């Protein structure tokens, strides 16, 4: 893996501005600033062809691994409660029909020796769709040096449209899919507006309308739910469920589901898949017979070892661990043991809603990134997210940042040295 552009003089202010304008107009990146700093880099990481093949295969393999884990866990309410689900939510989850997420993302990092590790699975409401579908093409258009490289994410939009089409099959004509979002969050709103625009034509051909609305536009009626005044028969939720437990929104959705009047495309199962406690469960069960030999090997070799915070090996020093809150998102509530004193670490352990993951010594990468002062050459760490659409690998979402990748990280496109993806058959047979 390498950074595509390492010379800051290559990215003039005018070139960068033209790129962002295209990103705004084609990808609706209205939120291209984070804390006043530019978020979109006119740059890319370039994967070696075998790295691309490995990550694509791992993405699909881990999709199966986590699906098996979640199905094994979901029927046990007490285990779900231990994972942080409130009891009523655990009961609802245990009765839910499991389905693969329409869109998920596995976040990988590469250590200093070049080995790839899985850190987490964003299965509930993964971000980055606009960047991957639209902005990456803007990078390739703006940088001649990118045009000869493969763009492995090129089919993400098409795959997503197909997945939404399948997920809404069987709805009667004239029915509607609602997409609900917290419209006060510009990033979320723009991402879901972009998604709605992406899928609307295809769903329209099925006779299904696509409706976008704010959480305050979602109303329970005698006939079911309505969004912005339009009755909806299916719902895709882009609101964090864990913060909605017990709210009228949550109750309205599950009443409609229970009455058979609503098809919830991303229910609690996706939140379970994303729960970091499931990482610990997978690690603990890595030798179990529920997994094939290839899956066991993938876990053993590529999942960063993870334990419940009160059950990590005695020999593990806290400086070698990272504590992560089970429902944490976007780097929130992530603590490196080396940054905490003994008292603070004990406090995290007492909360019990954390897992301890072995710290990966992530390799550094040099790349030119945008700052408010212009393009700068920086050394940083990269997280490569492998998208999975309905169980199939669909490309990447890469961010460049510091020790913890948060919402302050910069986005980079992801290209491959060799055009296209290696054959699917070789992925399936790969040994880890």
């Amino acid at each position: 893996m390498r950074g595509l552009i390492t010379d800051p003089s290559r990215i003039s202010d005018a070139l960068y501005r033209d790129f962002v304008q295209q990103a705004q107009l084609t990808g609706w990146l209205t939120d291209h600033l984070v804390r006043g700093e530019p978020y979109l880099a006119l740059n890319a990481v370039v994967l070696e062809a075998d790295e691309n093949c490995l990550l694509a295969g791992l993405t699909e393999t881990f999709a199966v691994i986590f699906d098996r884990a979640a199905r094994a866990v979901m029927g046990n309410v007490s285990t779900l409660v231990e994972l942080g689900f409130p009891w009523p939510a655990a009961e609802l989850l245990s009765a839910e029909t499991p389905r693969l997420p329409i869109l998920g993302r596995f976040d990988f990092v590469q250590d200093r020796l070049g080995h790839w590790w899985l850190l987490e699975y964003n299965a509930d409401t993964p971000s980055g769709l606009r960047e991957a579908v639209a902005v990456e093409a803007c990078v390739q258009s703006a940088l001649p040096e990118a045009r000869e490289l493969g763009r492995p994410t090129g089919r993400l939009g098409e795959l997503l449209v197909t997945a939404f089409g399948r997920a809404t099959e069987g709805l009667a004509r004239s029915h509607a899919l609602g997409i609900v979002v917290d419209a006060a969050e510009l990033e979320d709103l723009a991402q879901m507006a972009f998604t709605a625009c992406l899928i609307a034509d295809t769903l329209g051909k099925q006779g299904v309308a696509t409706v976008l609305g704010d959480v305050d536009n979602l109303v329970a009626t005698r006939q079911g739910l309505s969004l912005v005044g339009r009755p909806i028969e299916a719902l895709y939720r882009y609101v964090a469920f864990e913060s909605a437990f017990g709210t009228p929104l949550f109750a309205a959705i599950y009443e409609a589901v229970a009455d058979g009047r609503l098809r919830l495309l991303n229910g609690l199962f996706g939140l379970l898949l994303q729960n970091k406690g499931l990482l610990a469960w997978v690690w603990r069960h890595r030798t179990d017979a529920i997994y094939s030999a290839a899956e066991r090997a993938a876990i053993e070799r590529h999942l960063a070892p993870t334990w419940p915070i009160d059950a990590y090996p005695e020999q593990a020093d806290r400086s070698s661990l990272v504590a992560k809150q089970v429902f944490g998102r976007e780097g929130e509530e992530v603590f490196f043991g080396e940054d905490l004193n003994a008292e603070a670490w004990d406090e995290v352990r007492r909360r019990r809603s954390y897992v301890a993951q072995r710290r990966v010594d992530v390799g550094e990468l040099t790349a030119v990134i945008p700052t408010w002062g212009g393009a700068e050459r920086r050394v940083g760490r990269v997280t490569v997210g492998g998208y999975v659409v309905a169980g199939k690998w669909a490309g990447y979402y890469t961010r460049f940042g510091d020790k913890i990748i948060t919402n302050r990280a910069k986005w980079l496109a992801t290209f491959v040295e060799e055009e296209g993806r290696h054959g699917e058959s070789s992925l399936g047979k790969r040994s880890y």
Partner: protein
Amino acid sequence: MITGETSVQHLARALILWQNAAGPYWPFVNAAPFVSGHVAGPLLEGRPWVPRWLSEAVDSFPPLRGTPGGIGVQEGVQPGECRDEARPAPTGPLAGPFTSAADPDCSSSAVCSAFNGERAAFFVDVSPTRVLPAAPWLNRRGFVVVPVIQRWSVAPAVLRSERLLAQLVGYATRVERPVGERGVIFILDGDRAGRSSVTASPRRFDNRYEYPPCRFPAPDFLVTQGIRDVCWLFIGSFADDLKPYREALARQGIRSVEQAICVD
């Protein structure tokens, strides 16, 4: 109705024009209304107009005092007092063809009189359709104009956007990067919270919002642009969502003055 170019093309072109005219502040021209909206014409409502409270505040910035069209210091005015928006038309060479407010008999603002930096930034937190028509005039006064309007401009919605979009498109062709820059005017969406007296219908898209601090330039960026003083103009009381940003400016040593204004 729009002919020739589509609504999308009009809005795209307008966004680029606004950003190109914003110089170093181009990233802060928020694209939300331009990518979410639809314009059906007429594109421009009326002629350019400069509210008196705005011309007073801008012209109270010291470098123009005593120059034609500039306005002197108003005595006895304290931050927080209200001013009347409706005033007679402007005079003087800098006023150009615009309707403005240089009424010599009217006491004018001292809000920026103590500023001593080379450049100032104004954050105008008022209904944007009251301020956008003044953009060309502000350019001529030496100010970059940056609409920081995050409104998702669909219909039907709690916040209507037809007039806003028409102005954003219409005035886009009239703004330019000023010569001899004296500062920057950030046009905020003073309507973003909606009307507190009106209960929003769930049948209308709820596009109300608050500003996170990251929609605005980092304080050190402003300093590099020579901005040491900031003036806030608003109706009623200072908005809660802007307070964290104001505090961030203060931590950087940037001075803020505030002025509540009254409009019709």
